[in-house]
C-alpha cells in the first residue's frame, strides 16, 4: 500500500460516512407488523416446554431404548457407499458428487463433511503448486463451488464457536484463493499461502474431519 492508497482509503471512508443516510423509520408501524407475525407463530411443541432436566430424562430414556433396540437386531453388513468418478475421474461418494451439480437436501453434517473434504483437497492441490493455466482453469470453478458451499454452511451453522471460526477462516481463504487463481498474481498467491499457514487450515480441517478420504466422515465439531 502506498501513500496514494492511504489517501484513497481516507476519501472512501469520508464518503461512506455520509453515504446511505438512514431514513426515518416508522417504529410503530414496523412493530405492528412484527407483533402480528410473531403472534401468528405456531405454538411450541410440548416437549420444548419441559424443564431442562425433564427433557434430559426423556432424551436419555429414548436413547437407551434406541441402543437396546439396535443391540437386539440381527447383524447385517453395512450397505456399500455408491462411488462415482468426479470431474478428474477420481471416485468419490455419490452424495458428494451430486452436491456439485444439483440442489440436494443433505443433512448439515454430511454437507459439512463433504465441503471440508473438498476444501482440504483444493487447498492441498494449491499449496503443492499450480503449474499450468489448465490446472488453474480446472481449480477455479472448484474453488468457487466450495466458497458458495462454505457460505451456505456459515449461514446455517449451529452455535458452535469453533465451527463458526473454522468456516469464517475457510471463507476468507477461499475468497482470496479465487482471486489469486483467477488473476495469477504472485503477490495474491503469497498472501493465500501465508493465510493457509497462519490459520493452520489443513490441520484444523483434518482435526474437524479426521477420517478424510474414508467413506465415512466423523466430525469432531
Amino acid at each position, binding site marked *: 500500500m502506498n501513500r496514494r492508497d492511504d489517501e*484513497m482509503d481516507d476519501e472512501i471512508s469520508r464518503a461512506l460516512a455520509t453515504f446511505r443516510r438512514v431514513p426515518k423509520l416508522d417504529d410503530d408501524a414496523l412493530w405492528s407488523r412484527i407483533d402480528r407475525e410473531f403472534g401468528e407463530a405456531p405454538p411450541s411443541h410440548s416437549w420444548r416446554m419441559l424443564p431442562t432436566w425433564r427433557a434430559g430424562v426423556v432424551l436419555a430414556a429414548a436413547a437407551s431404548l434406541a441402543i437396546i433396540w439396535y443391540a437386539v437386531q440381527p447383524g447385517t453388513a453395512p450397505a456399500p457407499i455408491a462411488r462415482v468418478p468426479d470431474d478428474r475421474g477420481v471416485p468419490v461418494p455419490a452424495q458428494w458428487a451430486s452436491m456439485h451439480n444439483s440442489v440436494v437436501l443433505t443433512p448439515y453434517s454430511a454437507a459439512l463433511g463433504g465441503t471440508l473434504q473438498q476444501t482440504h483437497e483444493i487447498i492441498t492441490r494449491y499449496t503443492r503448486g499450480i503449474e499450468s493455466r489448465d490446472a488453474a482453469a480446472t481449480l477455479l470453478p472448484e474453488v468457487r463451488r466450495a466458497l458458495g458451499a462454505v457460505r451456505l454452511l456459515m449461514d446455517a451453522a449451529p452455535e458452535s464457536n469453533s465451527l463458526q471460526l473454522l468456516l469464517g477462516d475457510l471463507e476468507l481463504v477461499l475468497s482470496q484463493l479465487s482471486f489469486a487463481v483467477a488473476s495469477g498474481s504472485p503477490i495474491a498467491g503469497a498472501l493465500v499461502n501465508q493465510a493457509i499457514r497462519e490459520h493452520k487450515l489443513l490441520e484444523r480441517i483434518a482435526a474437524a474431519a479426521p477420517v478424510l478420504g474414508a467413506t465415512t466422515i466423523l466430525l469432531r465439531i
Partner: protein
Amino acid sequence: MNPPADDEEPGLLERAKRGDQTALRSLYDLHVGRVFSLAYRMCGDQQLAEDLVQETFVKAFRRLDGFRGDALFRTWLHRVARTVVLNGIRTAGRYRRREVPLELHPIGTQQHVAPAIDPDAILQERLAAALDTLPERARLTLVLHDMEGHTHEQIATILGVTLGTSKAQLSRARMLMRRQLRDVFEARSV
C-alpha cells in the same frame, strides 16, 4: 441511538422470554435503530431493510429461549441480523439480476453521464455500485466498521470470526473499493 447498558437487559430479557409484550416492545425499541441502520446500509432500499428488520426480530423473539446470556443481547441480535440480511440481499440480488443487468457508468464517458449531473451524486451512485459488488462478508465488515463505527473486536464477535479475519476482510474490502473507485477520485482531484 445509544446501546443499552448491560445491566438494563437481564430483567427485561427474563420478562421477554415469558412473553411479556411490554418487555418485547422495549427490546425492540432499544435495538431497532441499529438493526435498521445495518440493514439499510447493506441494501440501500428502505422497504427491503424494513422487511429484513421484521424478519430479524421475529426470528430473534422465537429463539429467545435459546439465548443464554453468554454474549450481550445486542451482539446476539446482530448475529441473527447478519444471517437475515445476507440471505435477504442474496435473494433480492438474484431477482434484481434477472430483471435488470447492473451497468456501471464509467466517469467521463459523456454518452452515459450527462454533464449537468452533480459530481456528488455520481460519487454516491458509484459508491453504491462498488459496495454492491463486494463479497458479502467483506461488505458487511466494511459497513460495520466504516459506517456503523464498530471496532474489530465487536465485528469479530458479531460475525463469529477471529480478530485477524475481521482485519483481513476490511483490508480486502478497501482494496476492492479502491480498485472500483480510483477513476472517480482521480477525476475529482483534477
